């Protein structure tokens, strides 16, 4: 239902209220999500069948060592107390200690995190910069069944690129550009040119998906009656597209774009392993294989927080772009 009657207070107050309510609601949801994430990360370790310390140290480790390590990790305390300790630790930035290296998990993450953030950030920026103009252009070119060949080429090309998973693309890129052509380093993070292939591997798929979605959304918006209204106002085409079509197509795309960004954060895990990138992705896989659970727990937590942060940004962006979303959302 729309608010048909004039609001009683001044407009500014109402807008402020709507935004305040939005912020409060969104913050509430964030806190619940964070709590779920923390608890999940905590329980993850406790759901593992058997003794995680025994699993980590191997069958040959002496019983006393296992017992001492269990004691040190607090695994012998009642579950609720472990949970309380865990939460208290988190408040102080204590993510636990690695079972293998004995280093604080937070230190490892601190060292590895920047590389991953760089990778995901660059890849997302690249994907967005390419896909938004491309999607819009394709929609405009192929609207109302125009230019069938262009449409076919674009849709089939983007399907293929969207399907190829990032790690396979990474392998392909390594083969072509490093093995055959020798233009780029095979692995590691040294110098600007070492960024090219990992970023490309991470960005191409999401860019293809995003461009496809944006095209479809734009085609939908082009059918909207308010676009007909804009045409009835006899605005020149560029103004119709930039003022009336793009903002509405973007609002519909942003949600999916956010999901893609989350996927990209996760995609770093695979790409980092192909390129031996010194980020969190390599750390988590290594830790899972080595059964170094405190590290796994910490990294999962960081990844999860990253995803929640992305979702928050998406909602804020939506609220800014679409004035209805602050009110509509319940």
């Amino acid at each position, binding site marked *: 239902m729309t608010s048909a009657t004039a609001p009683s207070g001044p407009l500014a107050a109402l807008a402020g209220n709507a935004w305040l309510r939005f912020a409060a609601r969104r913050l509430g949801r964030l806190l619940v999500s964070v709590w779920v994430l923390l608890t999940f990360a905590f329980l993850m370790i406790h759901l593992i069948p058997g003794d995680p310390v025994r699993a980590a140290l191997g069958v040959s480790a002496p019983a006393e060592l296992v017992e001492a390590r269990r004691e040190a990790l607090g695994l012998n305390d009642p579950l609720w107390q472990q949970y309380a300790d865990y939460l208290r630790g988190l408040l102080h930035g204590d993510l636990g200690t690695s079972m293998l290296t004995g280093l604080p998990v937070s230190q490892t993450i601190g060292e590895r995190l920047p590389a991953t953030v760089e990778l995901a950030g660059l890849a997302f920026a690249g994907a967005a910069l390419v896909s938004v103009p491309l999607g819009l252009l394709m929609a405009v070119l192929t609207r109302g069944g125009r230019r069938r060949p262009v449409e076919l080429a674009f849709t089939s090309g983007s399907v293929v690129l969207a399907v190829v998973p990032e790690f396979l693309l990474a*392998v392909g890129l390594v083969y072509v550009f490093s093995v055959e052509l020798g233009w780029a380093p095979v692995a590691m993070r040294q110098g600007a040119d070492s960024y090219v292939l990992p970023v490309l591997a991470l960005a191409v798929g999401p860019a293809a998906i995003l461009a496809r979605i944006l095209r479809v959304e734009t085609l939908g918006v082009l059918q909207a009656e308010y676009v007909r209204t804009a045409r009835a106002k006899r605005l020149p085409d560029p103004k119709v597209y930039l003022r009336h079509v793009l903002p509405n197509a973007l609002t519909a795309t942003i949600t999916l774009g956010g999901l893609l960004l989350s996927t990209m954060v996760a995609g770093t895990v695979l790409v980092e392993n192909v390129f031996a990138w010194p980020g969190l992705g390599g750390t988590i896989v290594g830790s899972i294989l080595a059964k170094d659970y405190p590290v796994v727990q910490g990294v999962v937590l960081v990844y999860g927080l990253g995803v929640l942060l992305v979702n928050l940004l998406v909602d804020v962006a939506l609220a800014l772009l679409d004035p209805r979303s602050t009110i509509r959302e319940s």
Partner: protein
Amino acid sequence: MTWRARWLGVLRTPVGASAAALLGAVLLLAVLAPVLWGARAEAMDTAQILRPASGAHWAGTDGLGRDIFARVLVATGTSVRLALAATALAVAAGLVLGTAPLLLGVRLGRLVTAVVHIAVAFPGILLALSFAVVFGAGARGAVLAIGFAGAPSFARLTQTLTAAVANRDFVAAARIAGVGRVRVLLRHVLPNVGEPLVVNATIGAGGALLAFAGLSFLGLGVQPPGYDWGRLLGEGLNGIYLNPAAALIPGAAVVVAGLAFNMFGEAVAKGLGVPTGGTFRSLGRRAEPAPAAVAPAPSDVLLNVEELRVSFPGKDGPVTPVRGVSLTVRRGETVGIVGESGSGKSLTALAIAQLIEQPGRVGARRLDFLGADLLTAGPRTLRRLLGTSLAMVFQDPATSFNPTRRIGTQLAEVAREHLGAGRRAAHERAVDRLQAVHIPAARRRARQFPHEFSGGMRQRAMIGMGLMGSPQLIIADEPTTALDVTVQQRVLRLLAELRAAEGVAILLISHDIGVIEQVCDRVLVMYAGRIVEDLPAAELRSAARHPYTRALLAAVPDLATDRDRPLPVIPGRPADPAAPPPGCAFAPRCPLADDHCLTEDPALVSDDAGRRVACWHADRYSPPSAFALHTNTHGAYLCAEQSEAVVTAGPEHEA
């Protein structure tokens, strides 16, 4: 019934057919390869360790001298089987979670929805990694991990789809009829969401395949001595300088199989969705009634349209919903076009305003507005002329404003574009125009968004937008249909007021003959893409000569309708614009129709007073003086002749 035809239709498209063939090949290989090449894939040859690709070993050999190509082929079985298992798990868990809100009731359902909502935000691979920790590295763990990781998005999809179906009236009707929740789900909801679920499960299987390859590649999936594509790829990557084929061939296998699932799903989704229609073929010339001599347009004529046609490409050649409409609007005149859905009235309005989009085609012998020929004018002239002198008002004010921009900005845009006004001046004009259409507190309202306006207010703001320039003509397409009666009256009053104050001509399109009669000077009645009658609104009830006009008037009950007699009705159903009958389009429903009517289409002919009618039997009702007593004569005629027909055979006509 039709669903089978639709699925077959999908397979007949090139994309659908090749995707299906590819998918079939992958599945076949998955079954046969382990049987055919299982032994070869296990055969170790210590003399042939880590060899590059050659004629004997297409993809080279691995560290134990096994043929990698054979291993890739055999791995199809494991890869596809595990992917399908994970998909089945995801679908099953997703269905349970997704239909839970429907079965559990409001409160518990909302909780499940919220949980799914949070889980969906987490990328699958991240969930899979976490689950891999819990379930341990290995094929079983990976199936569980990928299955559960895929469940939230499937649950979300199921929720969205079922919620949409559950809100439809047939589900409400089933509940009223006493059908239980589980039966409603099984009989009404699931069959109606089945297709999208199957499509998405197929696409999901492709995703699971790729995810599985990813996990195995990381060493978290299939463990040695077992192997799948991901594992082979991981092993191959280590030696990519020595033997690229060892990495590239399993990679290609993953991509091809993933594509097969994906493409098939997409093709099915597209095929079962809205059909896009055939390509446009040039319009065939149909025999048309002999045109009247083209008279020079008198100077007070604002809009002069002759032989306007609008056509769209259809499956079996072009469809022409507007078939030769001729009309004029004089300065300050209010002309109404009335007709049922499919009569072409709205398309006529859009065509006049040059708003028909491709693939629609507009043709006319003449389309003059303010003395300029709209058919030949350049885009700049057109923009300036129509931008300032022609205003449009559309049916649904809720969707006709851009939801993301403020009302004032949307109005001001016109002044900035066409009047060269600055930002401030344009805004002032917008506020002024909002006041002119009686928007209270216009200055404040101008800063609001469309959703903050009520329906009637939006429609008035839409009219205000038309007044930003100095319009000579307002084309209003069903401007009151979406509004409540009391609000309707305000909009109609506003239009009348504008006309009186500013001398604007109005072309009002409506299905409601009462609205037209109330507001207009002249009425054009449209049926099946043609004007069938054109007469002064004041004479509508006394001098209408076309049987359709008369039937339309009689069929609508008003506050004086006799409650004790059946309503006169028009038998049959409106003509299909895709296949207009050869003769008079109304003939199949007309009580006066004879053989002549069924074979030859009557031309729209004018009488001395400028009234026009297209009917072979129009003289049955003329001259008007014979109808001294208002509607009774024709009303009685229609009742006598048609109500009989309806009571006995009406419904069959409608078939």
